[in-house]
Each structure stands twice: as C-alpha cells, then as structure tokens.
C-alpha cells in the first residue's frame, strides 16, 4: 500500500505534554493503519486560531484540525472544512454519539456536517465536604440561587482553626475561563448573550444583567480575596490543599488531577473531602457551560479519505477513552462514560446530570471576537471588585459601553 503522510494540528489540554501524550495515542492508530504516517504539530490555544485561519486562507496546512467547538461554524462558513456528512451518516446508525446533551445532537440536524466532537468540558461546582459539615450544610443547600447565597452567608461567618473561610474560590480577572463561569448565571437568570437570530447583543438586557449582577455580588461578598489577586495555582491550593475556600467552579481536569488515584496530585484525605454539586438553579432554570474540542478534515487535504480514517479512529470509543483519560476531558461517547470515571457509577451519573444542563455559546461566526470584547469588560468589572469600586451602575455602564461595538461586529 502507498505510504501516506498526514499532518494534524492539536492544542495543549491542561498541563500535559500534548505532543507526547497524543503521540502515544497515535501509536495505536499506526498499528491499525501502518501505511498512514501522522505528523503532529502542537499550537497554543492562543496562536492556533490565527494559524488555522492562515491555513484556510493560503490553502496550505494540515489534513486534520483539532477545533474549539465554537470555531467550527466560522471555518465551515469560510469553506475551510470538508463536508463529512456521508461517512458520519453511517456512524450515526451505530448510535455513535453521546445522548448526553441535545446540542451536540442538534448539530447533526444541519444539512452538512463538518466536524465530529472529540471530547467535551464543562464547569463543575466542587465543594469541600469538611467545611460544609462544619457549617451544617448539605449539597441540596446550594441547589438554587437563594439557597446558594444563604449557604455562602453561613460559611462566611465560619472560622476554622482561627482562620476565616471564604465561601468561593474564584479564578481571577485574567482567567480565560471567566466568561465560562459567568455564562450559566446569565442563562439561569433568563438572559442570553445574543438575540435568537444572533444579529444583536442581548448581553445588556435586564435578564442578562440580573445573572451577571448576582454572580459579581457573590464574588464581591464571598470571593476569596487572596485568590482574586493570585493565579490559578493559588486558587487550587487554597481550595484543595489548605481548605480555606468552601466552593470552586472549575473544569473537569480538576477531577483527574485531584480526585483520580492515579494522579501525582492525588491525596486520599483531600479527595474524600471534595464533593461535586449541580450548578445552582436560577429563576429561569439550571444551566452548565459546555465546551470542548471537535475534529475536522481540511478542505484542501490531499488525502481526505485517510484524514477521515484518522478522525474516525480518534473518535472511536476505545481511542476516546484512552485520550480523554490522559488529558482529563470528558468523552462524548455515552458507552465509555462510566469507564472514564473508573466505573464509579455515582460519579459518572453526577457528571451526566451536569452535562444534561449543558449549554454552548451562540454559534455565530464572529463569536471569537465578541467573546474577546466581553472578556476584556468582564475582567475590568472583576478588577473593580478587587479595588472596591464595583457598583451595579458601573456594571451597567461597562456593559452598555461594549454593546454598540458588539452590534457593529455583528452587522459586518
């Protein structure tokens, strides 16, 4: 058989050496397809988009892309991705995809399919069982906005070993996950980022502001002041190791890093003390942020069939299980979900439940820049909390300021 060289671009996930971790997974592919040699290029998340766009523009680049789930629409619109509807159709009959969330299934209702989901990520509410016990709280006590606030109030009055306990550990203004943390509060308050046609911003409307205000008020009143100034590592330390914070929203990788017995960060006494809760329900329901990565074949690939073989292999249950375990993201395949959690059915069930409340960002092709504009403003608001300048008026003013800029972007 003729030897074929494929190139694939991937991005790093959490703190793993992606080139090596993914290289290991590709060895399994090479066994099955010895005539296909895959060259990997690892690009940082911040440079990947620029490079992918350059590839689409020049029609020179890899055969297969890893894509952030919100990137697919833009690339499909620009004609950078090959239509893989036909081969996916065959896979669909085998009930390949996760029934975990409706939105992923929704994408298959489109006329053409340009990518396959590879793995997903959601924001999870972790809590310290030891602090909850001291405060006389249970998981059900943080089930909705009101009870969540009351629980925070209770925790704030606690002192453990003479030290003040912060109800919330937040990731700080510089965190790129800030918008992922705020999104569920906006949605459960009845708000949206954009209107239903995706043509105008809704971020500044009453319902959206309500969710943002609720979140920022929580951060101001109950957020860990140390964590506000510090980096992610400090947040993790405060929450997991020293137990100075009672609750923390974070990604699934935290689970694999701290709760997985195979991780070098695992400590049984800490792991036993960490619980996972559903996101609190707001006046308009319960929502969790859902994101992840997809795989797509470049339209300009010289070997589309082989490129399809590669993404078909990587999204197969066995490959997905190995790789998601290695990089600590959630598989999109329902059959392997339990295995991902080391057969801990209760834990798997909890994650499934969280994902069932999952919602993605609006699928508009200018979402990338809209997210950047929003992030800058949210970071400003976050900083105003740190500096003690935050007020509801400031929040409204800042959001209003970016509305016309976002509407302008949407009008282009």
């Amino acid at each position: 058989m003729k030897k074929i060289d494929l190139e694939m671009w991937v991005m790093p996930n959490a703190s793993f050496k992606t080139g090596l971790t993914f290289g290991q997974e590709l060895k399994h592919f090479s066994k099955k397809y010895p005539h296909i040699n895959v060259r990997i290029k690892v690009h940082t998340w911040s440079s990947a988009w620029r490079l992918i766009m350059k590839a689409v523009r020049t029609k020179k680049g890899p055969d297969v892309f890893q894509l952030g789930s919100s990137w697919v629409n833009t690339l499909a619109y620009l004609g950078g991705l090959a239509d893989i509807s036909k081969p996916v159709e065959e896979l669909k009959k085998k009930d390949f995809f996760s029934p975990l969330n409706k939105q992923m299934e929704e994408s298959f209702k489109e006329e053409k399919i340009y990518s396959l989901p590879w793995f997903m990520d959601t924001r999870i509410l972790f809590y310290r069982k030891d602090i909850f016990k001291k405060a006389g709280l249970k998981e059900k006590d943080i089930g909705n906005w009101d009870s969540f606030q009351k629980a925070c109030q209770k925790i704030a009055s606690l002192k453990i070993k003479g030290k003040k306990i912060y109800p919330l550990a937040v990731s700080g203004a510089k965190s790129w996950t800030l918008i992922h943390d705020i999104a569920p509060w906006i949605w459960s308050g009845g708000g949206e980022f954009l209107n239903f046609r995706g043509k105008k911003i809704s971020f500044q409307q009453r319902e959206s502001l309500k969710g943002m205000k609720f979140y920022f008020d929580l951060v101001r009143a109950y957020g860990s002041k140390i964590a506000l100034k510090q980096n992610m590592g400090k947040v993790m330390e405060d929450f997991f190791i020293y137990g100075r914070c009672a609750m923390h929203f974070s990604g699934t990788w935290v689970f694999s890093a701290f709760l997985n017995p195979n991780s070098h960060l695992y400590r049984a006494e800490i792991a036993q003390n960490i619980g996972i809760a559903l996101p609190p329900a707001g006046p308009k329901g319960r929502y969790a942020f859902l994101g992840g990565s997809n795989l797509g074949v470049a339209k300009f690939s010289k070997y589309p069939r082989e490129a399809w073989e590669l993404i078909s292999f990587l999204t197969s249950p066995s490959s997905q299980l190995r790789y998601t375990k290695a990089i600590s993201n959630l598989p999109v395949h329902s059959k392997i979900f339990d295995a991902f959690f080391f057969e801990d059915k209760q834990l798997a069930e909890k994650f499934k439940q969280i994902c069932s409340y999952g919602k993605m960002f609006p699928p508009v092709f200018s979402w990338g820049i809209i997210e950047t504009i929003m992030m800058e403003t949210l970071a400003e608001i976050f900083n105003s909390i740190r500096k003690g300048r935050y007020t509801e008026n400031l929040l409204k003013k800042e959001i209003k300021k970016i509305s016309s800029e976002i509407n302008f972007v949407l009008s282009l």
Partner: protein
Amino acid sequence: MAKESLNKYSEKLRKVSKIFRYTEPDLEEILKQVLAIGFSTLRFDWMEILLWDSERKVLEVKVVAEKDGIMEGEEEIFISEKTDPRIIVGLGREKCIVRKKKGAEGFFSIKSGNKILGVLGINNRLSGRNIKEWQISLLKEYAEEIGVGIGNLELLLKEQMQADKFKALSKIGMALVGQLKLENRIKIILRSVIKHLSIERVKLYLVNEEKKVLQGTMSFDLRGKFHVLKEVYSLKKKTHPEVFMVMKKEAQEVGSFGLVFSIPLKVEKKIVGFLVADNIFSRERIKKEDIEYLKLFAQQASVSIENARLFNDVERLSLTDGLTGLYTNRYFRKRLGDEIVRTTRLKTKLALAIIDIDYFKSYNDSYGHMVGDRVLVDLAGIIMKNIRQVDFAARYGGDEFVVFFPSTSLEGVQIVTFRLLRAIRKHYFLISGKKIGVSVSMGFAIYPSNARNKEALFRKADKALYRAKSQGRNQACFYSETLDKK
C-alpha cells in the same frame, strides 16, 4: 577545552547561517533545523527558541529540543510576567542570564542589529549538570547567528512582500482601465484587497448625494465570493449608530481591537464612499503596512469609481428621457424585443400599452409649455407608481407613453389598467388657484395572442388606442380582431 575542539563546535554551529540562506523561507521549519544543530552540538537537556510576537506582546516558544526530539513549543510568556528570566532578557534588561550551578540554565538574547527578536534558552535540569565557560561563549555565538539569520529572512520577506504589493497595485490600475462599468470596477477593487493584503473581508459603501443615503454595494471575503449588499442608511437620520462608526473623515480604526478599518474614498476632498476592511474571522490586528496599502488602494478606487459613476450617468442619460426620467423610445424597443424572446421561450404572455394624454395640446396652448411639461412629469410619476416592479415604462414621444407588462394575463393587465386610470382621474393640478384635471386614453395588445412580432404588437396597440379615443377618450381599449375589420 582544546582550541581545535572549540573550533570544531563553532564550525558546526556556523552551519546555521547556511540553513537560513539555502532553505525555503519557512521560519518554523528553519528554526527546527537550527535548533537540531545546536542540540546535537552543545548537548544540553533542554533547548528552546522564543520569539517576540510584538503585536500581542508575548514571547512565543517556537521550538523545543529535548531527548524526545525537536518539537514545536506550547508555551507563551506574557510581557507582564516581569520576573521570568526570558522576559528580562527578551526586554533587554540583561544581555544574558546564566546560572552555572548544578542543573544549570541560561538565557541569551537573539538580536538583529539593536532589535531584540527573541531569546535562546537552555537548561540541564534533568541531568543536573552545570555549564562551562566555553559553552557559554558558544551559545552567545549561536544566538548571534540565529539573530542575523532571522533578521535577514525578515528583510527578504518584507522586500518580497513590498515588491508583490507594488506589482499588485500596478496590475489593479491596468485592470481598472479595461473596465468601464461601475460593478466590474468595484469587483476588481474588492478582490484585489483580499488577494494582496492580509485582510479577510472588505465592503464598499457609496454615498448617494441625490438621495442623501449611504448605500452598501458589495462585499468580498476569504471564501472568494461576492455578496451584494442591500444596506441603505439615511445620512440625515442617524438610526443605525453602528454604521456611523465607519463614516470617518480619515482612515481610522473602528472599535478598539484593531480588527476593523474604515477608509474614506475621496475625490477632490469630497467623500464619495468608504472601504471597510476587517479581520473579524481571525481576530488578527490589521497590520500597519496593510493600512498604508489600503489607503493607496482607496486612492485608486476613488478616482476609478467616480469615473465609472460618470460613465454610468452618461449611459443613463442616453437611455432616459431628460424631462420625465422614463426610458427613451429607442431603449424601450430594444427591451421589448428582448422580453418578447423571453416570453416565447417561457410560453407566457406579454401586454403592451400605449397611453396618450387627452387634449394635451390644449394644456400647452392655454397654460403654456411649463404647465404642459409638469403634466408630463406628473403623469410619468403616476405610471411608475402604479405599475409592477417587473413592468417597463417609457416616454414614447410627445404626449405618449408606452408600458409593457411581462408574464401577465388579460385579467392582470385589466387590474393594473383600472388602478392606473383611477389614479390619473384623481390627480389634479393647481394652476392660478384653479383645479385642473387630466385624463388619458389607453390601447392594449397582447403578445402572442394579438401579434406575432414587436412591430405588429405596436400596430395592434395603436389600433386599440385609436378606438379608445374615438369612443370618447378617458378610457382603455383592448385590441380585438373586429378592430381590423372596421
């Protein structure tokens, strides 16, 4: 270390300059080869080359060498991380930083002239080995070679790019000369912006002085497709604030991320339109040099578009009647001929109407030619208002008008006729405080039922008009064979 051995290493490292000179100008590939030479010669546990992304203000780890091989970097160090030794060296606060003890590490600036391009980093953290003086001097030499190589490469690429863009500008000029139509000229301009500059999408808006509106014309983007813009914004009422963001007197950034630029198209200081270029898809700032080229494109575009508009005006004037704004008889006949071909192919019907103003001469005689002209203008307006968008009206000559109604049945024409007659009957002119009405007679013929060709169709419609007039005017008559017998 013996001088010969040092020379041997030094010679090996000098291969770096050859790689820069003789390899295809792909910086990433070159850096991989360059680092491979350094890694195999100097044998540290870890080596990395970082380069500045000056726009984003980050040091990007471009390539990494370790025991597992040569790989692309996965890390970025932000300028704000002030205590990171790579930032210290990268900003030129120190020429190099070397920690000689066990598990040694070192950072050396990569420079081209006085400009710091990046940092070369090494360490022996894995083996715990220290670093020797001769290694430090070799590393400095090596970093210098890399700096010179990158500097030359950047210069080469810049010169190439400039030459390409100037060539593009002259090509565009040539292409524009060969096109007279406004639409074609706009297409050439938009396509050239995307082809020759690092711009992803470009839109062209034109100012319509007559209607006091800003009109979107076309957009073109990375997909290589033109998209007709239907946007029309009033220049008087600022109902669309986002549109007024692009209306700048000089080339200016729109928004705060450097992703959108608006460049006014000026002819003798008068703004005739705007080119709006954006990189919304990639979120990459539009480069300064691209803005300069956009301005040059805009200069060419302004004159070229204005000329095309003048050509359009001349063309329009030869096709339209100066008084009423309706098409001329000559153009009407040409369009009617085309429409008859289409009607035959589609096996549908077409109606032709000749409209004559009753006693028009008396208006001229009694009130003067000015009033007569006003009657003609008003009537043309009424006709245009009451026919469908697909129908085609013209001034036939003197006080006669013609209209053809494609793809229509007899019933359809009757409805329009009724509407038209009613509108004309309702209309009056105020002359010296006196209300004066106007009436018309209309003759209709249908193709292919009444006639087999254009000339015959005119004859039959004329017969029907004659009948309407002879029956007392202020009415419409349809052709029938009985008219021939009479």
